């Protein structure tokens, strides 16, 4: 089992670092897509099966907030988790994102382990109580 992730960040380095952090942390990373801004992200979502979006807030062309608004207005993506990875710390602005339908946020800088446990939780895995769905008993 694995999760297909789309990263939206204008910094190529940051995209790479987040991918590395996810891989190192033991997150079940499946396919990986990268977008430089919200506009590109919307296009990628239209043509690929993506389970989770990690998104920067401050980006040129279409920023994270406008991306979130556009995504929610499409209607087909209500259950797609969108997690912001951002330097933003203003509670009011973070609250706005949550009100717009963001699933959560991770503050940059971050430790890889934090990201993994946070994201695994968002994907519905619960740590340590055997609720994690695996392939066990499903092999033919």
């Amino acid at each position, binding site marked *: *089992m*694995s*999760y297909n992730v789309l990263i939206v960040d204008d910094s190529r380095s940051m995209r790479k670092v987040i991918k590395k952090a996810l891989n190192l942390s033991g997150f079940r990373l*499946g396919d990986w897509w990268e977008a430089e801004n919200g506009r590109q992200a919307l296009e990628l979502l239209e043509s*690929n*099966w993506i*389970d989770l979006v990690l998104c920067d807030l401050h980006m040129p062309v279409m920023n994270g907030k406008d991306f979130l608004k556009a995504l929610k207005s499409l209607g*087909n993506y209500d*259950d797609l988790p969108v997690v912001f990875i951002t330097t933003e710390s203003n509670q009011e602005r973070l609250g706005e994102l949550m009100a717009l339908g963001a699933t959560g946020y991770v503050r940059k800088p971050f430790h890889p382990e934090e990201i993994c446990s946070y994201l695994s939780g968002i*994907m*519905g895995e619960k740590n340590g109580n055997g*609720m994690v*769905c*695996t*392939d066990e*008993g*499903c*092999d*033919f």
Partner: protein
Amino acid sequence: MEPIKVLIVDDSAIVRKIFAQELSRHQDMLVVGTAPDPFVARDKIVKLQPHVITLDIEMPRMDGLSFLKKLMKFHPIPAVIVSSLTTRNSQMALEAMECGAVEVLAKPGGSFSVGDMSLQLVEKIRSASQARFLSSPQNPAVASRARPPSLSLPLNHQALSETTHKVIAMGASTGGTEALKSVLTQLPSSCPGIVVVQHMPPRFTTAFAERLNGLCRIEVREARDGDSVTPGLALIAPGNFHMLLKRSGARYYVEVKNGPLVCHQRPSVDVLFHSVAKFAGSNALGVIMTGMGRDGARGMLEMHRAGAHTIAQDEATCVVFGMPKEAIRQGGVREVVPLEDIPGGILRALISHSHGRTAEN
């Protein structure tokens, strides 16, 4: 013959085990895998390339509907929805059909045993394996075709008012919920009374009727025993019961009753059409639509012989071209038309027929 490769997606280990066990009894079925949740399911669909999946719509982590929508968009595959018989789940199952699932199966429970379910499961998987993706909502070409230009319909209310003595009988199975929706939503409120058999489990037919009622200009409800068939009303046969047309003087009404399965079905289209041929004769109009099997073919021939106008949905627009094909083969079909032309075909036939009668008289 290559067996039908099936993937079972269900969060219940017991259901996965029972399904796998029941399917293993059939030579033409091969369970290639099971998955407890949508993420595992996706991996296995990509890896194992099953022909059909059975999908529980109430799952942890991601509900079956969201999964189905993505599946139909990125990896279309015939899906048999498995759902418990609650009102909420019936509605979800209907939504699943709108998203492109082709069959719905009720989970065992109450008086409905695993044995009953097993037979239906196999039947539905066979039907689903024949399904073609014509009416996929994601396919824009089809979506635009499926939206018939309602203005072109002969909405001659004056003419329709002379058809109050008519009855329209319709039968459908696999892919039928969407096909029926596209036809019934186009019919005007002055349309003659309609009786419909759609192969579906109980409760799902209730939800289906409610859903259509919200979308149609005519009134749609699930039939109760003794209901009158009147203009502007469509009656849907309830799951697990047969529905027959009867006549008392000038009044048509339906009888809803128990009885043996006919063509493996209850409600059966043949049972309905047979009664329509008998009690409405040339005042009836029959429509046979998408579905696996041969239910309705004999009844349609009887209707045809009794003087009714009969219409079959064409192959290109059928999810499964089974029942219409058999009806055509048996010789009971007068007109074969694409799905989007069925409403127009119905109204044209009604009007020309009623004019013809007037001229004769």
